């Protein structure tokens, strides 16, 4: 006895499709114990919590991140489950939660600053966790991750070793990367090494700018990161997945630069007043 399903499946599917408006998906589904997952996206925040971030910078960052969560929630609510993972680095490195947490359940834990800037170690840790066997193990993971680095100074360890590890990680290669330098000491050249492009590096010199830049970068990156892009362009030429990710990274750079030009914050610089 055999039972083939293709044409017959399409016919029965048509029945399903026609019936879909009648199907009440909220009814008692005996298989409902295992929930349906939407397409998912993980946003990694790498945050410098070294001693130089102490005071207004860290205070402002904590406030902005608390405000940012509902905004990112709105990005994902249509058809993407956005998950957040926060890695802080100072003398030691630490994850805020043991695994990426759905934005619906994520609560910001206020951070404190002290110690030196172990950015290379943070890169190594991120590379180790960006794996199917670790943080990126959700079957519903459909998009390459968004990786957002925020720092106010130069690494105190060998960041290049860590960056080398990251650069060999395929999730990093295809991920959307952005960086925010905080205050005068942040090195934009080094941040561009991390993101792969100067266009995706922004700088905040004051509390107002910090709030604005974090929101601009995080929300824009989440929107682009969770966008399903077609695999053919306007010339109908078939694009590879690599082309799509390159196009997304370019789009992120362009949008960030446009939004940065609109910066109208006019408050006191971290390095003069704060």
């Amino acid at each position: 006895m055999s039972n083939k399903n293709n044409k017959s499946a399409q016919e029965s599917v048509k029945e399903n499709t026609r019936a879909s408006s009648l199907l009440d998906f909220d009814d008692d589904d005996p298989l409902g114990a295992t929930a349906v997952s939407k397409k998912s996206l993980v946003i990694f925040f790498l945050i410098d919590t070294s001693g130089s971030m102490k005071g207004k910078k860290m205070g402002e960052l904590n406030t902005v991140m608390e405000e940012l969560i509902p905004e990112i929630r709105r990005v994902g609510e249509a058809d993407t489950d956005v998950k957040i993972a926060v890695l802080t680095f100072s003398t030691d490195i630490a994850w805020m939660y043991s695994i990426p947490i759905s934005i619906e359940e994520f609560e910001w834990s206020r951070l404190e600053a002290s110690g030196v800037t172990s950015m290379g170690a943070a890169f190594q840790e991120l590379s180790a966790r960006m794996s199917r066997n670790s943080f990126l193990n959700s079957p519903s993971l459909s998009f390459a991750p968004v990786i957002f680095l925020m720092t106010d100074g130069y690494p105190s360890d060998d960041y290049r070793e860590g960056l080398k590890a990251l650069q060999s990680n395929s999730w990093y290669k295809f991920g959307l990367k952005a960086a925010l330098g905080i205050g005068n000491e942040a090195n934009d050249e080094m941040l561009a090494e991390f993101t792969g492009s100067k266009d995706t590096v922004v700088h905040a010199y004051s509390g107002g700018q910090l709030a604005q830049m974090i929101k601009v970068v995080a929300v824009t990156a989440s929107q682009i990161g969770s966008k399903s892009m077609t695999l053919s362009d306007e010339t109908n030429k078939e694009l590879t997945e690599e082309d799509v990710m390159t196009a997304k990274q370019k789009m992120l750079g362009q949008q960030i630069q446009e939004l940065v030009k609109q910066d109208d914050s006019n408050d006191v610089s971290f390095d003069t007043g704060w």
Partner: protein
Amino acid sequence: MFNGFSHSVIGQSHVLRNLVCQDSSSHEVNENYAVAVVADGHGSKKHFRSHIGSASAVEATLETIAKFYKDPDDFEEKFLRDSRLVTRSIEKQILCVWNDKIMKHLEENPITREERGPFTLDEFDKIPPASYYGTTLIVAVMGKNFSFGFQIGDGSLVAVYDDGETVMPIEDDESAPANVTASICNSNAIGLFKMFRIDSRPLLALFTSTDGLYTSFGSDNDFLDYHTIIASQLPDIETFEPSIVKNMTKRTHFGTEDDISFSCAYNKDLVAEKAQVLVDKVAENKQKAAERKAKLLNRM
């Protein structure tokens, strides 16, 4: 002794874009064995006949397994002697039969102007004809003294043991979203198959599914628990089957919007005998899922 079922539902994204279902599925049951097979046609631009390719792969599989099982005693003896060699022979034979089928289809249905339209002459000439029909293939065979399975490309194989333990017998490779799936149309396809064999423990059921099902789950645990729940309902599958199809439709509607195919081969007698074990396992899994969720929200 054996039974099975199979279903394919069109992906929500295909419905919206007025495309056909690229998946195919089937099962075959007789006194010597049961087969569960699914195939996922690639569906992208150069694989413009992949729905035919997936149907051909499913047919080629059923025909090939039947041929190998023509003398069941001889087949079982050879398989137990060298399962890898026999499985490789089956895979090779499927590739040959699939190639014959698609080439016959191509001969009887020459490329149309519409199919050629999206490509320049040069682009089209560079596409190997087998690519028009590109598909994955996932196969599970349940025999009297052993079970085995193999796959090429994305998709899942799940086995349920007689104590209710549910496993994926083929390990998933590390892959990023940008990686391209292996395909039956690749020139090196024979080297891309992965296989398993189980003869050490009694098996209740084997499931195959295309990746549209797996990607609609938040975790491997949920995915495996789903199969345990279905295994617990196999004694009354006629009543339960509509719920499975409805759930597949729900998964493509709210999940990754891909086509979903799902096929099962099971030991009817053993499933009936172990019905309570499975019901208990489902309750245990539910408890563990609640514990996992509570643990998940703990901060570092």
